[in-house]
């Protein structure tokens, strides 16, 4: 199970890095979404996968009777999902506004903050 997921996570990272390296901003954003999911699955898998034993302690015991699923990675993943979702939403709007203002979705052409023909500083005094 872990091996299969590890391969899947590796695939996700490959796709994410490939998309992040492209120059179209939409593809970069898709790369970020996939990267976030890859990280979430990685945390989930790193917390060990156990099947179908909920971490609930019976009334008369102090500790669980048998090995149970680990709830902490799920809490971590939940936090990370919320955060990456909100950041993704923000970046989508930001990218759209930047597209409106700059008129291009090609990051090589987005040179308003750093213009290509920026003059060199005065050389002599």
């Amino acid at each position: 199970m872990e091996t299969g997921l590890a391969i899947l996570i590796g695939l996700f990272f490959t796709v994410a890095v490939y998309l992040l390296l492209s120059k179209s901003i939409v593809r970069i954003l898709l790369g970020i979404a996939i990267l976030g999911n890859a990280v979430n699955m990685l945390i989930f898998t790193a917390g060990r996968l156990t099947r179908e034993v909920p971490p609930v302690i019976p009334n008369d015991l102090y500790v669980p009777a048998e090995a149970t699923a680990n709830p902490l990675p799920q809490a971590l993943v939940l936090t990370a999902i919320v955060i990456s979702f909100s950041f993704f939403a923000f970046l989508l709007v930001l990218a759209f506004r930047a597209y409106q203002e700059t008129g291009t979705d090609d990051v090589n052409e987005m040179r308003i903050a750093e213009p290509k023909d920026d003059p060199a500083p005065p050389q002599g005094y």
Partner: protein
Amino acid sequence: MAGSYPSVDVSAAMVTQPVAAGDWLVVAPVLITMIGGALCLMTRKNTDAQPKLGMIFLSLLVFANVGLLARVLDKGVITMVMGGWLPPFGIAFTVDALGATLSLIASIVAFTAGLYGAISVDHTGRRYGFYPFLLLLLTGVSGAFLTGDIFNLYVWFEVLLISSYGLLVLGNDRAQLDGAVKYGILNLVGTNLFLIGTGLIYGVFGTLNMADIAMKVSELGSPATGTLAVIAALYLLAFAMKAAAFPVNFWLPASYHTPNIVVSAVFAGLLTKVGVYSLIRIFMVIMPESREYMADVISLLAIATMLTGAIGALAQTELRRLLGYLVIMGIGSMLAGLAVGTNLAISGAIFYAVHSIIVMTALYMAVGIVALLTGTYSLREAGGIYGANPAFAFVFLILAFAVSGLPPFSGFWPKVMLVDASFQDGRGWLGAAILLSGFLTTIAMGRAWIYAFWRGGPEGTPDGQALALPAAQQGVFSAALWLPLGILTAMVIYFGLQPEWMFELTARGASGVVEPSGYIRSVFGDQ
């Protein structure tokens, strides 16, 4: 219902003693800024009250941090756990001298930025949330300095990141959106790398508490190979990205010159230093063997970062972009301290961080005043300030000396410590790079002063001539802008002339991370 459960002795899992009143200061910086941010957000339509309300909470923050630092110096490292759950199960806030010092300096800088913002941020900017974002940014920054839990550190990083997005696009003009795209995407990738490392740490050690991880790593005893080396490399890349170290520094010069100048000032002071702080915390406290293993890589990164910053600064015409490269240069100097990793080197890095937070914020503020007086940030067009306002020209010269590391200002002492430590450790090239980058910075800043201040006006005007100030701008340069700049400049001069106090403080901060037994004992008690 409750009666049907067996009565349980909770002392094995929970803190049973009430928290000492003074220890509440540990969470005070986070609470104050969060509550202040929420209140400012609710009242943001009342743009006249915004600065007053914001300044109340920012001054409360400074007082809380002074109290916290005093308590840490008095009692040693303080730990407080959320919900009373004993570590490593509860999320711990663990404050040592390093965290408390940086938190205090950050709050002072934010206080001055709040003062400056009252003038430079207009009513539209206030309505769109300058003060709420500033306070929430400080929530993230203080939380990152104070937390003792590595996943919690990730959360604080995200808090400061989302607030910084808000500040960065405040004003919504084309260059800002362009810069924010690069800043936003690269920083998000950086935090994702951090999260990967954290997930792997949890997979290997089954804990997220920094002190607990530190103990488990030291029990491992083996050199940093295998998974641990992967984690260390991921953390190095992630925090180098956050700190804008070479070769992942591109987002900083692409974005830091686009927002309102006071926002640039806060960013330049605070954000990159949180990355450096995390590097020091993780590589000194948690994974010291990995740091030794990677010391050569880190020193190469440090040299490349310093030289990129200094040479980049030489090539800029725009004053704000020039300063952006100087921020990067400073990051390189702090990384040099991490590469050496001795007590003296880490003290130097902490002192440099304090100096850099103050002086970079002050320089951006000063450059904002240059633009108010001359109407431009370009070295080709600015000029005549010396003639019009010699006192301000003198202040700028002090800051230029300080950022270049010339005595008798605050930049001199940390550089002395760092160069000394590098030579003691047999890393002469590192020391040489610190000196060379200081020399190049002196040229870049000297040139900025000569063109923007000494020359009489735009290119071609004779020297020393006074700038004819447009009547509308005469009143702008008022006491309200002098005050924040004056506070920061006074600190620059004070730390330069009276460094003993800082020597002691940074030595305590450094010994706390070089020999983290006090940190671990504070979390787990005497075992």
